[in-house]
């Protein structure tokens, strides 16, 4: 008798557990026929092509169309959602899915402008590496809490022209001495661009000599003291930069263009596969190589998030899930496509799925996983905004 009751209770509990969240099949059904306005930075042709491929795949498999809204800056999408909230548009918003992380994510999350949590409900989320890649669950020291779904991984590397740089620097101090010997041949993007300010963060990490204070929010008291070595180093570096540090390329691709034109020999990149991808696309000479600093470089994850007033939430979730599919992630990591390293834990994949990664083509410009080493955690977002503001105050002409 008691055994029957126990079994009955367990069955009821099991049934309840199964029927609780919206089943994925329901979401896929409702997503059919939707067109997802995917707001993503449009400055990189490879990524644009990848998003277009994803659109074709998702349309064929799930009947969901993707409209790639090309942004000059992710902040544009944030502005739009804020403006829509200000105008009282709480449903049917013009942004369905946005490629986002860091301060932009913080801005939306804090103002309650995100839909979710949804990420952990995605079937493919189970394969994401949440133990070794802490950046997948902590976005610039802000807990993700499932409000955004991981997409691609990034880590700071330096791309050098192997023909002209015989002695690649392996720390920011070595970078400074190299720049002094070869003035005007090093550039970094403007600090209004994420890559530019991360270059400064990397320098701060090495020069501040300790990671822990950077994981805490910056305060008025400690900011000047902690960043003093950074500005001292940068003051020496600035005259040695391209155009004597009075002019900066707008973003990563602009910087890459400079290298392709022969105007610089060293550039900073967030994509470990950038050198290989660019050579393949004819955007950099074949002599480029990738250099990782000896004591590690900053890495982070890019996510996709869904605004609270998105018109096509189900379609957006289907797209987010598709982006986490091992075949999609492997195709993304292929340097002939976009060369973005995966956010998945290869150990969690089935042997067939892991083979997709093993079979990826190799290149001399591509670093190995061993070379990439450990990635340093991103500092608290407040450091970034303060560093950018301080830089603008000091170095705007």
């Amino acid at each position, binding site marked *: 008798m008691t055994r029957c009751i126990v079994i009955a209770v367990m069955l009821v509990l099991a049934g309840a557990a199964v029927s609780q969240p919206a089943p994925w099949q329901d979401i896929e059904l409702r997503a059919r026929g939707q067109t997802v306005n995917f707001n993503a930075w449009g400055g990189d042709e490879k990524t644009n092509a990848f998003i277009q491929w994803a659109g074709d795949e998702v349309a064929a498999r799930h009947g969901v169309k993707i409209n790639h809204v090309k942004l000059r800056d992710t902040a544009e999408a944030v502005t739009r959602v804020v403006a829509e909230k200000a105008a009282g548009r709480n449903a049917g918003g013009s942004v369905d899915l946005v490629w986002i992380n860091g301060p932009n994510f913080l801005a939306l999350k804090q103002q309650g402008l995100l839909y979710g949590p949804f990420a952990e409900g995605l079937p493919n989320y189970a394969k994401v590496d949440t133990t070794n890649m802490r950046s997948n669950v902590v976005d610039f020291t802000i807990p993700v809490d499932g409000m955004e779904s991981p997409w691609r991984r990034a880590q700071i590397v330096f791309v050098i022209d192997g023909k002209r740089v015989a002695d690649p620097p392996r720390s920011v101090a070595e970078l400074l001495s190299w720049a002094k010997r070869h003035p005007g041949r090093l550039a970094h993007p403007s600090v209004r661009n994420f890559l530019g300010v991360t270059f400064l963060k990397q320098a701060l990490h090495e020069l501040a000599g300790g990671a822990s204070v950077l994981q805490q929010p910056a305060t008025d008291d400690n900011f000047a003291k902690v960043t003093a070595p950074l500005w001292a180093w940068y003051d020496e570096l600035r005259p040695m930069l391209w155009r004597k540090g*009075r002019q900066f390329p707008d973003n990563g691709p*602009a910087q890459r263009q400079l290298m392709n034109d022969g105007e610089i020999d060293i550039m900073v990149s967030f994509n470990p596969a950038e050198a290989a991808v660019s050579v393949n696309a004819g955007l950099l000479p074949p002599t480029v190589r990738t250099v990782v600093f000896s004591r590690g470089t900053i890495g982070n994850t890019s996510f996709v998030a869904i605004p609270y007033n998105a018109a096509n939430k189900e379609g957006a979730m289907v797209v987010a899930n598709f982006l986490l599919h091992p075949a999609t992630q492997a195709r993304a990591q292929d340097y002939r496509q976009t060369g973005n390293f995966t956010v998945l834990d290869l150990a969690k994949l089935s042997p067939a799925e892991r083979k997709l990664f093993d079979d990826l083509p190799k290149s001399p410009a591509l670093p190995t996983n061993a070379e990439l080493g450990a990635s340093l955690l991103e500092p608290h977002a407040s450091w970034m905004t303060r560093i950018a503001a301080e830089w603008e105050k000091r170095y705007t002409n």
Partner: protein
Amino acid sequence: MGEAVHQLTHLRAAPLVTVAVFLLPVVAGLAGTLLPAFGYLPAIGGLELSLAPWRDLVATPGFATSLAITLLTGIVTPMVAAAIAFCFCAWAHGRPWMRRASAAVTPILATPHSAVAIGLAFVVAPSGWIVRLLSPWATGFDVPPEVATVGDPRGVALIVALLVKEVPYLVLMIVGALAQVRVDAHMAIARSLGYSRASAWMKAIAPQVYRQVRLPIFAVVAFSLSVVDVALVVGPSNPPTLAVLAMRGFTDADVARYFPASAAAVLLFLLVMAVIAAWVTCERVARVLGRRWIAAGARNGASGPVAAAGSLAFAALALLAASSILSMALWSVASQWRFPDALPSAWDVAQWSRRMSALAAPFWTTLATGVVSTLVALVLVVACLENEARMRRRAGTGVLWLLYVPLLVPQIAFLFGAQVLLVRAGLDGTLAAVVWAHLVFVLPYLFLSLCDPWRALDPRYARSAASLGASPLRVLVAVKIPLLSRPLLVACAVAFAVSVAQYLPTVFAGNGLVATLTTEAVTLASGADRRVVGAYATLQALLPMAGFAVAVAWGRGTR
């Protein structure tokens, strides 16, 4: 009889509707930007009027430099542009190749500003085409020299990029104004009095022509002070001009930046008014000095050499423009073009078909927006001109200034306010909103292109047709329009080119959801693959040129 009156009443609404269509957004938008400039924008929590946005603006790092380069580029450009335009017209007057030269300049006029700027960024860069053509045999460079050209902190590249388009525009305006002056007779008299060709033109013709070219020059002033797309491509960035500074504020994730951005936009509007007022004052001074110069009677003065120098500058600018457009066309079919090769080392024409799918959507959007806005503008303008003819009342100079309002008010000063209103009405992001935003600028240009030929049509044609029993509508459709088909097509080509070139209106009214060739090209210009940018810029140039080719071919066909 009743039908004629009926038509008359409908037509009478035309001027009102036209003015409403293009002035309302400007006025409403200005108000919508003025209020946030003083802290009032309830939607994001600004409830009190205050001067805080202005304090924030002035406290922005680099504000003083930004203001300085804005004024520098905004004043130098129109001055130099007017000088070169007048010098060229003085030197080239009456020469046999003048007509062919004017025709050759038309493609430059048709190409959007941003497309020319994108090409120019490649041509004049230290690793660009000019240096590549000279390296390494003449310069000995095997790496590009350390020279700041594109994006240089003083804005010289911006000035050059603007001159490349503004000088041909002013030359066109001067040539148009010449038709209303008795040029040949006055030139004959002046030359018989002993003045050389250039000197005679400068002293006898130029002052008469200047009066009619004033408004276009003011439009150049406004544009140079407040341009965004060209400044984004070749202008300084650290800090940028005031217009780009405002743009950055309007697209910042931190909405609190809208307030100082609005303040910057209002400041730009005030700057434009101030510079125009200063220009008018300088005109008075110039008039006094000019009279003395003319009365002094110097025959062998500096006019000749100065005019020749100005014409050389014009030729250089034309060469830069042509090479800019050509370089982008080359990039679109190149597969590899490294420094210091003078031409691509590997070609790949097939990439056009690969890019076709990505190019298709912006292409059709640009075409649709252009065609629709041109047609709507055409209907309104023809209605206004017909109404004017039937009322037998000619619109005065007040109307001319009214038409120029959208061209004199900085775009960024009213587009933000207009966007807020569109979002309120739920119309933002639609093609209709973008078409309307384009209409604001297309209308004035179409009217200005069409009004002179329309008014100059011999009224006796219409009168004879009417006496043969044709209704006013029939006269319009069967007599006037066919007779004016060539000017109509040219005006439409101009209007279409204006629509293709619009950047800020598409970005603001379309809320980023509407992608045209121009918006894509400007976005990609910041470093994307030049082969891709080349394809976009080439299409940007080809579309308006096709419009003009149609107009010219039609003209030849009906001869």
